[in-house]
């Protein structure tokens, strides 16, 4: 299909994503709700792609949920972030990779503030020095973890055991992508495809055999809204946003949803459960829910990782319909078993010996 206008411009735009030597920082939300995704990211990067990814044991929250919950002042958030950058500097890295979109948005915002207001950066440097004695350099390259997977999507496809294809019909799976508001809405040039034509997840889906659905509410917020979810009295807003998206995507008969954000997969997963409890309504085929995945979970499935090693048992909306469509071999009896100890070994044919 011929692309015209802004879409053509954005399709040619590629943000710069470093090739190796990453300083990795974790997501608070994902460590609690999708721990298997961060484990999968590191396994793919280190064991499949043989990249240098370093995690400092003393890194912390970026304070982003507190900042957007408006209890953490901007000066405090900037200095917490500066400390993270100091750890990167001390460890000898220059390429910063956060696992979290809220963090990615906050880092981007702060680097932009410092760029436009050098006096503010100087104040942050003084505050960090006073509080911790540390000094920092601004990262040379800031890429979200999904940007990195996007960059290596072809390498992952080359090692794929499964495709995003219905093995019974041979048809590509229909996939809804949700990139999360803070990935590119604030600073479109910092995201692959910008805010209007996001391609970071769509690029993975297409490379791995699936078909992306372009539906009316594709860019709509999942409904996290920080305080709109954190406080129980406000959660009507949160579920209403997700419901608007489900109603909009339903006519396109999606097989699955792939997500970018820390909160988005959780909300799109859990609110389906709540809507079914409240209204007896489901949005997938055959009166099922629509399985929701993180991009690492999808990459892991494509590479042949065990679904329960990826943590799919921690989803409320069952993921089995997608596993069955893709023809993935799995043992249903292992789903809730806790006595399986991860071997942290992956299939030898996945290991990229060439670049070791």
């Amino acid at each position, binding site marked *: 299909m011929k692309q015209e206008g802004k879409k053509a411009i954005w399709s040619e735009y590629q943000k710069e994503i470093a090739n190796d030597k990453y300083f990795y920082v974790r997501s*608070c939300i994902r460590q609690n709700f999708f721990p298997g995704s961060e484990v999968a990211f590191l396994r793919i990067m280190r064991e499949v792609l043989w990249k240098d990814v370093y995690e400092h044991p003393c890194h912390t929250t970026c304070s982003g949920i507190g900042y957007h*919950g408006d*209890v*953490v002042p901007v000066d405090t958030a900037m200095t917490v972030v500066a400390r993270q950058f100091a750890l990167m500097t001390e460890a000898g890295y220059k390429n910063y990779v956060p696992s979290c979109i809220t963090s990615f948005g906050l880092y981007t915002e702060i680097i932009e503030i410092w760029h436009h207001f050098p006096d503010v950066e100087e104040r942050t440097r003084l505050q960090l020095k006073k509080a911790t004695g540390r000094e920092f350099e601004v990262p040379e390259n800031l890429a979200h973890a999904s940007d990195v997977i996007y960059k290596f999507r072809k390498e992952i496809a080359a090692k794929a055991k499964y495709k995003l294809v219905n093995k019974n019909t041979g048809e590509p799976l229909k996939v809804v992508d949700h990139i999360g508001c803070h990935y590119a809405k604030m600073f479109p040039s910092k995201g692959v495809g910008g805010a209007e034509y996001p391609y970071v997840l769509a690029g993975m889906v297409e490379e791995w055999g699936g078909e992306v659905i372009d539906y009316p509410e594709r860019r709509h917020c999942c409904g996290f809204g920080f305080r709109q979810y954190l406080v129980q009295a406000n959660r009507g*807003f949160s579920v209403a946003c997700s419901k608007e998206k489900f109603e909009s995507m339903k006519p396109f008969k999606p097989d699955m949803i792939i997500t970018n954000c820390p909160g988005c997969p959780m909300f799109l997963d859990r609110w389906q459960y709540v809507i079914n409890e409240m209204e007896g309504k489901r949005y997938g085929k055959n009166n099922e829910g629509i399985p929701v995945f993180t991009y690492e979970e999808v990459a892991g499935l494509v590479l042949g990782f065990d679904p329960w090693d990826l943590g799919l048992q921690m989803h409320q909306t069952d993921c089995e319909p997608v596993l069955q469509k893709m023809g993935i071999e799995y043992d249903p009896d292992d789903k809730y078993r806790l006595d399986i100890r991860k071997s942290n070994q992956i299939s030898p044919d996945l290991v990229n010996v060439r670049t070791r």
Partner: protein
Amino acid sequence: MENLYDILLRDVRFEEGLKACMNCGVCTAICPAAEFYNFDPRKIVDLVQSRDNDEIIELLKSDSIWYCGECMSCKTRCPRGNAPGLVIMALRGLSQDMGYFVESEKGRQQLAIKRTIGEWILSTGYCVYLDGISVAMHPEQGPVWEWVQDNKAELLERMGGNYKGDGPGILRKIPDETLDELRKIFEVTGGLKRYEKIEAASRKKAREMDLDLGEGIDNEYFRHIYKTNNGTHTR
């Protein structure tokens, strides 16, 4: 009293977020919160740029500034490059610094966020922490979350995590020296002062409302602000 608009100008987000608004309303058209709540970011920005001190005080005491979800959809679309979401963040900061936030139902909720997210940052090093996300406070998390909570240590080990362990990894214990650094950052940059202001204004309000406000989250005032919705906020 210093003019509030002049105080707002000292917030870098306000300077970034508001040039001259021409009142086109695109921000309201794209805003998820405006779809749901009695909320109109265009009106808020217009009121603020009027620089009317009395009107700004009323705004800071109202529910209006607490409806935004800070998704920043408005920033993408504003033809003037404004960011009403950033203006809202500056207003929320000022409302808390002035103690006005306790005058609205939605504003009072800031204590709940401070006593959960805010405290977890300093006590654990995480914004969100497994031990605090109880099934009772999060029924929407469903039966799977009950299973997670009942088996969290074994499950985290099975997933390859490092729950409360030393060194790197998922939900590792953040070292005490690191937590000391975080607290010092909060002290030096005004984070602790913000927390103290939220606590002080909330204690005063709890007395006015004749509700008990003890430590932590198991008290009348916390439960009230966490759960109360008077039903007048939505369209």
